[in-house]
């Protein structure tokens, strides 16, 4: 069940260039969150933004019932979000969407493939997988050295390979240059559409899940802003990213 909460910001840090990590105190509901789900945030102090902003849940802290989000400042909404201070409250819808169905699959060795602001949801996923005894290896890609974040956190889950477009840190190139040299039975990927397309092409013989982005209206499945065509034969077949997704089986939808 989706809830609307006023969540207090209990921590806020800049963890890379234009990249903010925030912890929001929630309440019991945070225990129901699955990896891959997102929050839909009203970023305007004074209703200055009509549309909420979808941000992935990067981690859950059950002890103080808080969630962690990590976002990059790219426009007016994330700029406003950045201006909130510790102690202030944010109007948040959560949990939104359907996460990675890790309870329904039999996975022994998982590959996480993240790009840029697609990296955050994979962290909570990796943590959960590891808790469940799954071996976790990750490849996380960024534009450049100053954008890299969470390498240490991923390294604690298992082997972690960092890739930068310009080679200023880790491997030079794209995540796709690395992933086919690795061994795994399921992959989990989140990042820009171009990356997801490349990853799912490269790994077309593997089972996997991808998490995709689209501009959203309601964020709960009512407005049909965020549809994506399905890959089956059904005429007019489609899924709503905000409700049926953002996580889909690779090749379930046309990206």
């Amino acid at each position, binding site marked *: *069940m*989706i809830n*609307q909460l006023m969540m207090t910001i209990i921590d806020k840090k800049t963890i890379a260039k234009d990249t903010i990590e925030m912890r929001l105190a929630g309440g019991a509901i945070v225990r129901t969150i699955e990896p891959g789900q997102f929050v839909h945030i*009203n970023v305007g102090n004074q*209703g200055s*933004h*009509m*549309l*909420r902003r979808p941000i992935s849940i990067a981690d859950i802290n059950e002890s103080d019932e808080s969630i962690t989000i990590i976002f990059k400042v790219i426009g007016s*909404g994330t700029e406003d979000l950045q201006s909130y201070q510790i102690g202030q409250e944010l*109007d948040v*819808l959560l949990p939104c969407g359907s996460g990675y169905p890790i309870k329904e699959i039999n996975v022994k060795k998982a590959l996480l493939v993240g790009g840029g602001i697609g990296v955050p949801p994979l962290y909570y996923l990796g943590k959960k997988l590891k808790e469940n005894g799954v071996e976790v290896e990750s490849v996380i890609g960024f534009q450049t050295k100053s954008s890299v974040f969470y390498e240490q956190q991923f390294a604690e889950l298992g082997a972690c390979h960092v890739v930068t477009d310009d080679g200023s840190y880790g491997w030079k190139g794209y995540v796709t240059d690395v992933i086919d040299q690795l061994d795994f039975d399921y992959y989990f990927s989140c990042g820009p559409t171009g990356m997801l397309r490349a990853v799912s092409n490269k790994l077309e013989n593997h089972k996997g899940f991808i998490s995709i982005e*689209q*501009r*959203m*209206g*309601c*964020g*709960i*499945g*009512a*407005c*049909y*802003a*965020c*549809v*994506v*065509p399905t890959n089956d034969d059904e*005429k*007019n077949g*489609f899924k709503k990213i905000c*409700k049926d997704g953002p996580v889909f089986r690779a090749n379930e939808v046309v990206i």
Partner: protein
Amino acid sequence: MSLQVNLPGLSLKNPIMPASGCFGFGREYGDLYDLNQLGAIIIKAATREARYGNQTPRVAETPAGMLNAIGLQNPGVDAIIDQELPYLMNYDLPVIANIAGSTVEEYIDVTKAFTRTNAVHALELNISCPNVKEGGVQFGTDPELAKEVTYKVKEVSHVPVYVKLSPNVSNIGAMARAVEDAGADGLSMINTLTGMQIHLPSKRPLLANQTGGLSGPAIKPIAIRMIYEVKQQVSIPIIGMGGIMTAEDVLEFLLAGASAVAVGTANFHHPFVCPEIIDALPDVLQKYGFTSVEDAIGKGHDHDLSRT
């Protein structure tokens, strides 16, 4: 404080309903709160066949508003009747079905299909969706075409017909009079204004459909003006919409001449906005000296002559 309003085909416990296209067929918001609180529900546009709609991106944010170009995505009228309406029959909630089409025949066929069910209490004729390219726009901007489609739909409809007017016209009064003449039981106004946003990094229109419909608080002054103007020219009731966010906004629409209102974009900003407005409305009415919703309807017109 009575919030009750009676309109052709609709006995409303309060004047607040979600606007077409902004509330799906009710399920998602029904998961958040009890839909019985609403005055009525206007469901998403139905066409004869299923439509996929436009490519994405389909929405963009604008100052105090948004653009949408959903493109009438819907599963077709038969699927709506079979798969969506039964859910709404669980509620004590008048249902207004929004119908759209590319040709007069399509409007007639969709209307006829709805006569199969008694789960629909009124029709809202969407002659104004700016996102349909095959001619939808024409119906909304040409009084003669609007008259024709209204007349033909009225002939086959078993429930009252509200015609939803487009604000993208030179003379809204002429449109309103034309559809009143053709037998419309009421008006819905306004639909969205056609707008565009250009995405600077890609140097192209942000919406895949290029243009989209502008909604939200940005357009409220235009909605109020058009309702005020039309109220003086027709005698059928008006369901008002365009940028409503608060109970004060609702009162402004009532004063302008609306008998009930629909809330669209605000649902995305704040999913509980409809029940919150309903809760707040009695106090707002009382604050400004009204004893009921009906008492406020059209009251913004009484002073026209007393002003210097």
